[in-house]
């Protein structure tokens, strides 16, 4: 547990000293979602219909943007090896890093989403639901993404490879996350979607630090 707090604090301090890194991911989210109306036209009814999917895909891509930095800098300067050798269980350290990644890359996206939702003419009720679904979904994206980041650590073309590995695994989160908002827009209860999203979140947050540590040990061998 100590290791969890330690890794979390360390990564947060590092992130706050390099503000450009996470601000880039946030602006990426804003710009990608703002490009879409320019591509498909400004018709309000169409925009309202595609808003949940667009915002969710934007969140997904901007999470992906921060993933290579999850382990790569620590791998480059040898910190990661020290972590793997330390008596503190590696999964705790990894869990701390995952939570830090979510706080840096996921949470700003969640907080920014309602504002972008307004641009897409989403009703206020759905905006709340959008925040809830992203709140459940973005930690899930960080947890699954950490595995991909560990598997592609130090490889040629790591970033593109990472998206090829991880994006198919993001599909359930996308379906239930965007589905919750869409169901609400259509006047159906979104509870089923949110429950399933929460269930997947619990399972992946439980297993991800453990599997990611295995992948890190393979990469460090």
């Amino acid at each position, binding site marked *: 547990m100590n290791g969890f707090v330690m890794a979390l604090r360390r990564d947060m301090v590092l992130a706050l000293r390099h503000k450009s890194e996470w601000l880039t991911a946030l602006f990426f989210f804003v710009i990608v979602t703002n490009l879409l109306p320019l591509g498909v036209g400004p018709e309000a009814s169409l925009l309202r219909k595609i808003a949940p999917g667009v915002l969710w895909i934007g969140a997904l891509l901007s999470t992906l943007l921060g993933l290579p930095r999850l382990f790569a800098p620590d791998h480059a300067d040898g910190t990661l090896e020290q972590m793997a050798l330390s008596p503190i269980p590696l999964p705790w350290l990894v869990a701390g890093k995952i939570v830090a990644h979510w706080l840096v890359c996921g949470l700003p996206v969640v907080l920014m989403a309602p504002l972008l939702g307004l641009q897409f003419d989403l009703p206020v009720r759905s905006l709340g639901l959008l925040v809830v679904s992203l709140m459940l979904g973005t930690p899930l994206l960080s947890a699954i993404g950490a*595995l991909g980041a560990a*598997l*592609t650590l130090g*490889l*040629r*073309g*790591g970033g593109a*490879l990472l998206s*090829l*590995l991880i*994006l*198919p*695994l993001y*599909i*359930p989160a996308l*379906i*239930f996350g965007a*589905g919750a908002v*869409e*169901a609400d827009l259509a006047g159906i209860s979104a509870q089923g979607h949110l429950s*399933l999203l929460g269930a*997947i979140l619990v399972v992946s947050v439980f297993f991800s630090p453990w*599997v990611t540590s*295995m*992948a890190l040990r*393979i*990469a460090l*061998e």
Partner: protein
Amino acid sequence: MSNSIINWFKYASPASFYPLAGRMIPWFSWLAVVLIASGVWLGLFVAPTDAQQSEGYRIIFVHVPASWMSMFIYCVMAFWSALGLAFNTRLSGMMTAALAPTGAMFAFLSLWTGALWGKPMWGTWWVWDARLTSQLILFFLYLGFIALQSAIDDPRRADRAGALLALVGVVNIPVIYFSVQWWNTLHQGASVSLTKAPSMAHVMLEGMLVMALGFWSYAIAVALTRVRCIILEREITSEWIKRNAVE
């Protein structure tokens, strides 16, 4: 190890598996040729014309077995991956790597033949049906596995990283399948269902099973050939290859 118990790990060594694979390849190759030829004959000449779909339905003799194989091969890959991670056997990783391209090929074949069938039957090459979508995602999972393996230079790391990915993938397949299914039904209602007519003529089912067995033999023959190449590539410096394998 005493002689009284079976040595389960005898063929886990590439040196003893290499000749065994070499002896098995011709058998499975001929079996594949015979089975696929008789499957094609059953499918194209013996099976009756379908009442609703006329002649166009005959592509299912390729389509359905290919879909089965693509799913089955991923499970076999996961099996070898688990074995490789548990027992640290080198051959398991090689088998997984050898199976992946065949699985990807079957997944692609299933999508392609599905599109060819969908055009005359549904009037469109592609619908966002739950099965089509999850088959496409399975194809992506295969591509991800192959890309990861080919990006890693160290074969041991490639095997173990690939094994982990295959296991995570196989856990995800049911989740993805059900999520896509619910997504589809929640959105559009049952638009197009792939479910066949309630009763299928006996000979159609037989033709499909024969084709499936033929594809099975083909997959085994090809995977064994590929695993032999991988063994040669990786063990080229070892003594036993210099003594036996290179004739």
